[in-house]
């Protein structure tokens, strides 16, 4: 992109200590105020609000609840529901809104009280979102990913240890993050000896269910206050292939997902390739998700992701530090934290788990549904 671009002024997160009675809106407000403070602006500077949805609570328009709680009357607001891709997708919505002139400074926030709020059985709520023809047979969300995982493993002769390595890698990152839910290092053997959720996926290969809240402030480069460490949006892309896995046979035939398209669109907009990346934050609802997305992004060749992880590609000391907070597998639920973590690492405000060298560029990716909705963003420090 040339000329006026979108920039991220700051990022905020809600405390992830489970607190009975805390609502999704409470978490959203906490994350939003943190982001506004981090951006160095006033609440009144916000003239656009975009939020995600809550699974734990019903809201006809979550963005209205957040805006009112913040005491603002934005000229643009929207609630986005794109399943797990929502965290990345609300930021794309904010980018489009500020570049398109709908508003100047947008707040993009996603929060949910999935652990401390009702209903208790989030896995059941999620599984009921599958088509009736799938749900009638009794699959977990993990089952649908497991079906895709088994095809991937057969296609590339990948073993359970290739998948498990992803969980081991991100736990290693979580160990340094005081906000991560699980910080004790684990081994491949630990993952493979954890109870099976839906074969071949074990419990330690599934994302956590926690409370979460994350927010970023997005504005235009020409409206930006003097903030030398604002993060520039270099490109973005989205793609949608299916709601039901029954309608996308490529998941099983080639294993190529819509993330190949969304990342290609982002690379083209940015004039970049995978080789230009210095950090990645990848939606990690299951171990298999990360391996397949890595290949869709071109971070390695097809079938090579397991070996790439084993060789340390994603390690904080490796060539492409990824999911540096521990990700959804060890830190917390909610794809919005991939975005906030990217901004914090690039601005040098990640705390104890800050990378030694500030990443110059980052790929941030959200995945929704069963590898159906994909959102890729590329950020740069300049």
């Amino acid at each position, binding site marked *: 992109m040339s000329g006026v671009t979108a920039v991220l002024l700051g990022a905020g997160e809600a405390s992830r200590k489970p607190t009975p009675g805390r609502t999704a809106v409470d978490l959203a407000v906490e994350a939003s105020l943190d982001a506004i403070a981090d951006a160095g602006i006033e609440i009144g500077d916000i003239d656009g609000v975009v939020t995600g949805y809550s699974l734990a609570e019903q809201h006809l328009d979550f963005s209205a609840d957040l805006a009112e709680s913040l005491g603002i009357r934005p000229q643009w607001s929207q609630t986005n529901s794109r399943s797990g891709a929502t965290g990345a997708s609300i930021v794309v919505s904010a980018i489009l809104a500020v570049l398109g002139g709908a508003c100047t400074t947008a707040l993009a926030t996603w929060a949910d009280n999935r652990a401390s709020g009702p209903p208790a059985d989030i896995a059941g709520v999620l*599984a009921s979102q599958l088509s009736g023809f799938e749900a*009638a*047979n009794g699959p977990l969300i993990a089952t649908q990913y497991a079906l895709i995982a*088994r095809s991937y493993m057969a296609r590339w002769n990948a073993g359970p240890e290739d998948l498990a390595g992803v969980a081991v890698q991100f736990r290693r990152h979580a160990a340094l993050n005081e906000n991560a839910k699980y910080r004790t290092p684990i081994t491949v053997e630990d993952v493979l000896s954890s109870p099976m959720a839906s*074969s071949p996926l074990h419990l330690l290969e599934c994302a956590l269910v926690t409370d979460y809240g994350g927010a970023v402030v997005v504005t235009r480069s020409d409206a930006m206050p003097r903030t030398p460490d604002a993060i520039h949006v270099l490109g973005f892309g989205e793609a949608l292939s299916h709601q039901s896995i029954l309608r996308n046979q490529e998941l099983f035939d080639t294993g190529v997902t819509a993330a190949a398209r969304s990342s290609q669109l982002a690379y083209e907009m940015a004039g970049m390739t995978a080789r230009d990346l210095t950090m990645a934050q990848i939606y990690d609802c299951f171990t298999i998700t990360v391996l397949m997305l890595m290949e869709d992004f071109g971070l390695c060749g097809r079938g090579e992701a397991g070996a790439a992880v084993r060789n340390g590609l994603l390690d904080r000391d490796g060539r492409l530090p990824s999911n540096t907070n521990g990700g959804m597998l060890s830190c917390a639920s909610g794809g919005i934290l991939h975005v906030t973590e990217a901004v914090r690492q690039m601005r040098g405000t990640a705390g104890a788990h800050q990378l030694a060298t500030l990443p110059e560029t980052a790929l941030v990716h959200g995945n929704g549904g069963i590898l159906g909705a994909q959102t890729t963003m590329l950020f740069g420090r300049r």
Partner: protein
Amino acid sequence: MNEAAAQLWAEWSAGRLCLQQCTACGRSQQPPGPVCSWCHSTSLTLADIDGSAELVSWSTVHRAPTKAFADQVPYTLALVRVPDGALLEVRVAGDEGAESWKAGMPVVLALGTVVDRALPTGRVAG
């Protein structure tokens, strides 16, 4: 649930093993809907199937998604492809050897019952 889905459930409940098929391109699809996902035709009908299918993938579920399935775990779900193209997810009986199954193995589909619903179920014919 769309109208086509309601019709398909009703036919299965009445004992007819069928799927939605496109009269323009001849291919079948699941879940059914108002438009053919292969060719975008809106000329769709319910057509009988002979129960033949091939195994694409499978997973054994060890934790029940809801209370309704709690007394059934573990059970195996298979993804199968019928000759006219549709993918189905079905409960499979006789899954003792599931870890040695291979994609491409034949699966025989027949109407069965899962919890209280009549739907296609499978048996891997290895």
